[in-house]
């Protein structure tokens, strides 16, 4: 922890960056929230513990945050992968952001100033679902189709189309989302059952092979819809079918931006 604070003070004092995006204590003892540290002495308020789960990479593309100047960001492996994925989609340039990489156990902090360093950093940490997540996915996959339909319909029925899932997703950076296109109106704006189903499927498909599984969408959902399961399922499929895993490289292509002539499927007639 001291290591991180020192690093932040150092970067700000030297003028290497103008702001550091990190975590500070939140409203209660269970919550952490984002900190935008701009003065070296503000680094004292930084924290780094199991509460700090939000994927702060979502702030890197926010116009108001960009105005702060050059940024450094405290990044757990998932956030680091997000940054690489954003880089591979040409949303971040090499050297634009200094990443303060935090090891999975939350103890060691390393300054990663280039994408190459970032790639090495994430390469040391296995990506993929946790055992707990796999169990949950398997539970739904194990249902009959009718049960799955009923399960998702009851979940989607609560959706109020606040789009908090989209706002919280670092990969949802389009300045104009498909749901805001109205000529033609692809996705109904209204939160009725048809509109909700289409929104959730379109959201998942647009993140297919790009999702880093940070879980921020599900955390942000005020209605408690486990919508990260949809993107998890797609990530598992992309890995199984194409060996594609998002967020490993700043230059790589993602599952749906490339193909192999011998991609295997078992359903095309």
């Amino acid at each position, binding site marked *: 922890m001291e290591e991180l604070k020192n690093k932040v003070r150092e970067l700000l004092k030297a003028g290497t960056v103008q702001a550091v995006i990190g975590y500070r204590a939140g409203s209660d003892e269970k919550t952490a929230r984002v900190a935008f540290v701009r003065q070296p002495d503000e680094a004292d308020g930084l924290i780094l513990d199991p509460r700090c789960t939000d994927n702060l990479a979502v702030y890197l593309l926010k116009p108001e945050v960009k105005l702060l100047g050059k940024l450094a960001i405290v990044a757990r492996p998932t956030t680091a992968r997000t940054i690489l994925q954003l880089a591979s989609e040409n949303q971040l340039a090499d050297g634009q952001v200094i990443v303060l990489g935090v090891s999975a156990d939350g103890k060691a902090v390393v300054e990663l100033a280039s994408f190459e360093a970032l790639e090495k950093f994430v390469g040391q940490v296995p990506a993929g679902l946790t055992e707990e997540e796999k169990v949950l996915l398997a539970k739904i996959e194990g249902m009959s*189709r009718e049960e799955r339909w009923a399960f998702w319909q009851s979940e989607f029925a609560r959706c109020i189309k606040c789009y908090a899932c989209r706002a919280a997703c670092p990969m949802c950076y389009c300045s104009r989302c498909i749901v805001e296109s109205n000529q033609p109106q692809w996705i109904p704006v209204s939160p*009725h*059952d*048809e509109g909700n*189903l289409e929104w959730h499927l379109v959201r998942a*498909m647009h993140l297919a092979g790009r999702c880093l599984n940070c879980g921020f969408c599900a955390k942000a959902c005020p209605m408690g819809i486990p919508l990260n399961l949809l993107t998890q399922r797609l990530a598992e499929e992309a890995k199984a079918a194409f060996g594609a895993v998002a967020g490993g490289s700043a230059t790589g292509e993602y*599952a749906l931006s490339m*193909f192999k002539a011998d991609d295997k*499927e078992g359903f095309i007639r």
Partner: protein
Amino acid sequence: MENDNKATGAFEPKLVAFVCNWCTYVGADLAGTSRLKYASNVRVIRLPCTGRIDFMLILKAFAQGMDGVIVSGCHPGDCHYTVGNYHARRRWILFRSLLDFAGIDVRRVHFAWVSAAEGAKWADLVNKVSGEVRELGPYKEYQGLAGKGIA
């Protein structure tokens, strides 16, 4: 459009086929000029390439009351735009898995490669899909979404 057979009153599935301009559409045309008789349940919508067949089209088809959807284009290696169908294939693999996970009946979504020379394959495909979806009956689950959730 009625889903029922006017003569017998039995259920007749409504199908839509999204096909590419260069292979399947020409193949379907060949089926016609060859005077092949096949099920009349399908409405064909021609698009430039399978790469253009947005997955949303499939959802919209169901939302508009279709009981089944066919998506078809050039065989791998034969794409008029060289690689559109390869991209489409990847998308279908993921999309089909998502549909299944969300509880949508993937027995109602059919993907195929039908070349310009395969008029007979097209006729056979439409016959088979019509038969299969006829067995499944109308897609009540999806059609039941219309208007649901509106106070």
